């Protein structure tokens, strides 16, 4: 090999970040959400520590409202040898029956933000890998690769450390923790190109298929199970759709598409004119500064 492509360089950088974290922190964990970014991050981690097994467990902070196909994918990954998967559900949210229909923003806050904090504290993890990318959203553009959180898991934009060269300052005091983003410099297109190159398996929901759907507030939602509530006048219609991002099914908007393969997804993305977060109801509460606000509160 005499020259490296952009994917080679992104891969090398991500592996460097994964190794640096494992070498310097006491108890890392990898957030695993079954999405394409998680799949790529897990693939990179397996490469980084080959021929050894993963030197950290995977953590799924569950909301009980993911797509069935996502749970199937999760259980498949968990069954692979040398993989330890922890599933955590916020007991309070479980107890109160928090759901996306009745509780609005509280659903995300209690299941995901609070659930994550509780899980990290419970197991004493001091660094958590996440699959977030800087190209996802404007306020992410300034996020560090190693994002520093205080003992209450809060993110203070003014206290983030400058990151020079590939010299990451991983030092922290007791109780403080890090969120580490190995895919910081990847774009959505890079992720798909890498999935194609490496033959990484992703949840079938990313590929177009006929699915039972309803249209609500401009989003196409999939009726994934019997818990989906229909408003008066709403009708379940079969549409050929796929998802660009995956989350809780009542909050994930689908796009109408014919793309049935990774190649077709890439081609469609280049021709299409919507950003992947457009289908995320979660970003919308609170206007354009909403993601930043969520991060300060401890959202991933």
């Amino acid at each position: 090999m005499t020259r490296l492509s952009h994917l080679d360089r992104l891969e090398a950088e991500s592996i460097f970040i994964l190794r640096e974290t494992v070498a310097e922190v006491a108890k890392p964990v990898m957030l695993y959400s079954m999405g394409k970014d998680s799949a790529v991050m897990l693939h990179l981690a397996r490469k980084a520590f080959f021929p050894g097994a993963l030197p950290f467990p995977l953590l799924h902070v569950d909301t009980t409202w993911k797509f069935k196909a996502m749970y199937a994918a999760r259980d498949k990954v968990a069954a692979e040898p040398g993989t330890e998967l922890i599933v955590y559900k916020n007991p309070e949210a479980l107890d109160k029956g928090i759901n996306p229909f009745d509780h609005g923003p509280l659903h995300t806050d209690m299941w995901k933000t609070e659930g994550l904090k509780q899980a990290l504290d419970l197991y004493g993890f001091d660094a958590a890998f996440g699959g977030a990318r800087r190209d996802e959203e404007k306020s992410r553009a300034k996020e560090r690769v190693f994002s520093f959180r205080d003992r209450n898991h809060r993110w203070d934009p003014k206290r983030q450390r400058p990151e020079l060269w590939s010299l990451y300052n991983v030092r922290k005091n007791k109780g403080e923790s890090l969120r580490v983003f190995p895919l910081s410099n990847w774009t959505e297109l890079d992720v798909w190109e890498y999935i194609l190159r490496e033959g990484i398996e992703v949840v079938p929901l990313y590929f177009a298929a006929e699915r039972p759907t309803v249209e609500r507030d401009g989003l196409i939602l999939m009726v994934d199970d019997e818990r989906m509530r229909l408003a008066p006048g709403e009708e379940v219609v079969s549409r050929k759709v796929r998802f660009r991002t995956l989350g809780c099914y009542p909050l994930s908007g689908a796009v109408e598409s014919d793309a049935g393969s990774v190649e077709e997804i890439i081609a469609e993305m280049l021709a299409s004119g919507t950003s992947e977060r457009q289908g995320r109801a979660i970003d919308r509460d609170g206007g354009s500064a909403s993601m930043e606000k969520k991060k300060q509160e401890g959202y991933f």
Partner: protein
Amino acid sequence: MNRPADIKTWLAARESKELLRFITCGSVDDGKSTLLGRLLYETRQVADDQLAALADDSRRFGTQGEGVDFALLVDGLSAEREQGITIDVAYRYFASDKRKFIVADTPGHEQYTRNMVTGASTADLAVLLVDARKGVLTQTRRHAYLAQLLGIRRFVLAVNKMDLVDYDQGAFDAIAAEFRAFAGEIGIADWIAIPVSGLNGDNIVEASLRTGWYAGPSLLEHLDTVTLDHSADVARPLRMAVQWVNRPNQDFRGFAGEIASGSVAPGDEVRVLPSGRTTRIDRVVTADGELPSAIAGQSVTLTFADEIDCSRGDVIAAAGDPPESADQFEATIVWMADEPLLPGRGYWLKIGTQTVTATVQEPKYEINVNTLDRLAATTLELNAIGVAELATDREIVFEPYAGEGTSPNRVLGGFILIDKMSNATVACGMLHFALRRAHNIHRQHLDVGRETHAALKGQKPAVLWFTGLSGAGKSTIANIVERKLAARGRHTFLLDGDNVRHGLNRDLGFTEADRIENIRRVGEVARLMADAGLIVLTAFISPFRAEREMVRKMLPDGEFIEIFVDTPLAEAEQRDAKGLYAKARAGELKNFTGIDSPYEAPAAPEIRIDTTVLNAEEAADLIVARLLERR
């Protein structure tokens, strides 16, 4: 970009795209965000829903009336939106058919040298923006200087807002000539000036018809074709900083890291530094199979033909052309924290995968980044750049940052300094060279060593380090301890703060820097005495944790015994045996610990004496007992 006819061919071409990282810098009103927003827009990085949001944002926050404000595409955090300026480094991504680009977008504001340096540290090229109406400003020079300082060799001078000078060639030529003179002065050889309008899109992607007199490439054409540093990195000798030792079982021991420069193949002879031992590469292991060779920029795992010691922080290098190791250097330092540099204080220094303790001397000079004049300086404050000597507590493997003509040695030449208390990254720096001093003064091997000294005295040496507020009772207790030890036939020596200040340290005052030097000297003297086999007692306020830790590290494990004489401030002040607290309260004594200078209590002292519970005799008995029960 339209949907290509043959997706497979086209995808194959995409996979072999190269990566170029660049930085954009300009003054506040040069239109940098607009230019960058335009670049993203024209390369189709902006989706329809984002455009809709942009139109909405433009009406609410925009500066273009009813027009679309492209700058809003790249202005992120809400605080800066409200202030109307960019306040941090933001990273942007776009791609052409040939290359993927990572853009470090840094602000032009004067106080943000820190951000500019951060952005430049990973960039291969710098785009300097100037306003066609204003020409090369002080800030432009500063940005060019900073980018060059960080090792960037290729520059684009984007003369923006050409629409506001009616696309006048004369205006453009005058600015280019002005920059040429400056570039020659500071040694920028590889640069190009391009007339652009971010607002109207001229010469951003396509050549503009409105600048018919300009025959050069558009900004994107230039970014697509400019030479990259990668081949220069590969041509240099092998360097790989070991990140992590991969040892999944007894049969496998691999050394993981990213190759910083050169290439490596099975059979290559390598040297592991700093030990200097040599071996051959057995295999280049990756999850995709063993590689016949690997080059700079790849993350790999190497195995050796022989079992030799190698761990995180070591550097694997070409056996015939290894880098140097040293513990004293000259370096350029960029200060990045609100709290200024404290010469003599120990900071963590991270370089490659090595982390050591380093102390920085008073700067030789500070550089005025606007005039490039050298100014006298005793410290470095936020955003100051200076040249200083620094010493590390052990040898580190390094290369001069600036290299020779080719790309900079970023991995083994660039470092950060970390505050030991707050863990904040307080500075970055670039090593120039090792100081001859350290090279030429080799340690003399002594036939009669410290073990012999100690054995002759029949005791185990130690440093009993008493720390606490003025008037806490340190000297009183230390005196009694020494008396009791002498009575048991132990060889001791008591170094008292006040006494030392009459002699060895009479040139030092009570500023933070002088207090640090005071403790450093006492620590060195205590170490020499411990080497001579003595039990040394020291009674110094020694208010800073970092300095006490510095002394601890000078001594073999277990020989530094920190004794915290814990007396509440109110109690010490009430005793006030020397009348110092009264003077300090009256403002006659400055920097008095506990009054207007902090005392950092030990977190985990070997012995803590609570003087509200124990009297001096009881305290001394406790200390003697603890000392003598040591093995």
